[in-house]
């Protein structure tokens, strides 16, 4: 990648270094800014990180899975987005792969992830 692209990407990703390091298998709580008319509020989205895509670039995203009233929900966040207020890591998971697509069909006991100590 060209130095100049990296320069612009670093400027875009300034906030990313403030977030704690996390990877797939971790349980995170993402605080998202939501604008409704003139009002702004914070919404939280808590779940397991399934994957991080395009790391190191301005277009990096991460996918969070949570079970919302019995239904599995995936949400993809652009990590450099100014709409992300903060990211909290609640639990470090011990997983053996970078992309946890196998979780998609599982629920309950089968969908557990061991904690990394």
């Amino acid at each position, binding site marked *: 990648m*060209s130095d*100049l*692209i990296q320069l*612009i990407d670093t400027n*875009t990703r300034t906030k990313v270094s403030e977030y704690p390091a996390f990877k797939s298998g971790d349980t995170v709580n993402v605080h998202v*800014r939501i604008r409704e008319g003139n009002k702004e509020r914070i919404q939280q989205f808590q779940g397991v990180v399934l994957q991080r895509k395009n790391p190191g*670039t301005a277009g990096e995203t991460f996918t969070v899975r949570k079970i919302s009233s019995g239904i599995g929900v995936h949400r993809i966040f652009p990590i450099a*987005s100014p709409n992300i207020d903060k990211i909290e890591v609640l639990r470090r998971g011990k997983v053996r792969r970078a992309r946890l697509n196998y979780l998609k069909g599982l629920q309950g006991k089968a969908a557990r992830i061991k904690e990394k100590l």
Partner: protein
Amino acid sequence: MSGIIGKKIGMTSIYDENGRNIACTLLEAGPCIVTQVRNEETDGYKAVQLSFEERKEKNTPNALIGHFKKAATTPKKHVVEFRDFRMEFEGGVKIGQEIKLEDVFIVGDYLDAIGISKGKGFQGVVKRHGFGGVGQATHGQHNRLRAPGSIGGASYPARVFKGLRMAGQTGNRRAKVVNLRVLQIIPEKNLLVVSGSVPGAINSTIILEK
């Protein structure tokens, strides 16, 4: 029309003040040297000729070396004329003057980008002109799913009209994209960030017009 010559660096994305992700193209534009100023008395029209990117003297024809010497500069690869060049310099633009990116564009401007589009080779009508193809795989369609269909009547007009869209060379021709917004300018790196995409491959020359 003002403008500058640049080089395509590549694409990335940035966020605007509303938190929206915008695809953008990075261009290294200028500095350009004015190699000729055309005026109404001698040339019949007003224009400014700009040159961009160093070129080895041994690869430059003698006629061009003389042309660049007149402007007291080194040989350049690209020479482009801009009609009615508007710029707020005292006494107008002079030969040999250096034109920088920030002299021509400010953030928020809209510009047109001209380049040579990526060559796609000899392509059929579906890719080249957006034809729909046959649309059915059954009912006797054996191997003509992407065929153009009829190209005209047999008994009248009994010929094929000129300019009828057919298969042929696609891309590798001059292409212009209009109304790209200037998102950022970084003068010390001669770096220009515009919204959207620009024709051509990475490192290809792009003419930017305002």
